[in-house]
């Protein structure tokens, strides 16, 4: 019970600080808007070309936003020795990991909703009809991204060249998540039923389980030192 309370209080703290300082949310949301332009300009005015690329662009957008947002997960702990304060707390440190993971999932979900809406509006793509299965794919994909991202963020907070190392470590590991989510999204946007992408969802769910488990088991080793 204490474990759950501790995970919860970490989430509560991060959301509260975010709401007051608004460090991440505003900049990330604006970043999403900029991505929209970036993709459009990169692919040119051909509407069909853009529409065909939407599944990939959507996830590219999430990952880019994720690289920015996730990498900063533990920066708040660097001030005032709070990182050490966390290390001094007794009990299972993985509660901190889960709390941070939950916070990151909330952040990523907000980004995704914004991006999906922007894509629907600006690229004139119907994302409403497959909304429910799409939401499912987004959910499992987000957990996969956040699970590893939170772990690596904790690690790279203390390392030199943090901004470079974080993407270099995260992206190769995320390849399966990217492949699975883009393939599934593509199928769904083409109108295929959920059953057709079940194998991708199973892969993602399995991967999520593995990533979160490793995160829970190894977080205390990352927090130390």
């Amino acid at each position, binding site marked *: 019970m204490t474990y759950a309370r501790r995970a919860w209080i970490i989430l509560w703290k991060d959301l509260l600080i975010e709401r007051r300082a608004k460090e991440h949310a505003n900049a990330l949301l604006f970043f999403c808007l900029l991505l929209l332009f970036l993709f459009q300009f990169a692919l040119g005015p051909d509407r069909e070309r853009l529409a065909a690329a939407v599944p990939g662009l959507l996830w590219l957008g999430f990952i880019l936003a994720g690289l920015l947002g996730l990498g900063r997960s533990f920066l708040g702990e660097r001030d005032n020795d709070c990182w050490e304060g966390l290390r001094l707390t007794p009990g299972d440190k993985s509660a901190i990991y889960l709390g941070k993971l939950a916070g990151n999932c909330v952040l990523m979900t907000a980004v995704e909703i914004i991006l999906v809406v922007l894509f629907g509006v600006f690229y004139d793509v119907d994302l409403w009809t497959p909304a429910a299965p799409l939401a499912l794919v987004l959910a499992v994909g987000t957990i996969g991204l956040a699970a*590893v991202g939170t*772990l*690596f963020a904790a*690690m790279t907070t*203390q*390392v*030199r*060249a943090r901004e470079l*190392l974080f993407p*270099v*470590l995260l*992206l*190769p*590991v995320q*390849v*399966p998540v990217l*492949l*699975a989510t883009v*393939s599934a999204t593509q199928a769904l946007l083409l109108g295929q039923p959920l059953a057709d992408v079940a*194998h*991708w969802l199973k*892969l993602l769910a*399995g*991967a999520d389980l*593995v*990533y979160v488990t*490793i995160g829970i088991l*190894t977080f205390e*080793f*990352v927090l*130390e*030192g």
Partner: protein
Amino acid sequence: MIRALGWLAVLGLMAGLAAGFGYAPREAVQGNVQRIMYLHVPAVLTAYLAFVLVLAGSIGYLATRRSGWDRLAAAAGEIGVLFTGLTIVSGSIWGKPTWGTWWTWDARLTSTAVLFCVYVGYLLLRSLIEDPEARARYAAVVGILGAVNIPIVHFSVKWWRALHQPSTILGPERSPIDPAIGLALFVNWVAFTLLFAYFLSRRMEIARLEEQT
């Protein structure tokens, strides 16, 4: 002991060369370029062996905190990256005349490339941390994640694309290879494994000596 291993590896490689170029027949469809398989397949098998050892070293270190395990993980990681690079390059050379292009995003090549990137990241992480204790710890976490991710990568890429020849060695079906080719492959694989073991021991020895100064 290590010296003997080295000589054994050299012998093995010579035998492998002989088997690959002399003993094994010329492949019907692809011609002589197919012989690069005697480099490519053992290289990838050895790379996987290396990354299993990275996993073992990583878990070993976190469990015991003895630096010997970390040295194992580090050395295996370095050599694994080397052999993975070799796999990709040899695969590319094989591919040019066979498929007409230096690179295709087929399942096997893509998986190997992703593997390469994961472990280059691993080595980069190691190079950026000076404190040996922190370095061992962080590298261990990445090592574990990277290794456990291998099957996930494998499946996701395989489903995503299927252009590469169906796996004739690692596949579940009985491999339809000419026994002569199979033998040549086997000899080369043993030779590579010996070479890997030799490099690994040497590298770990160097690391141990460095630690003492």
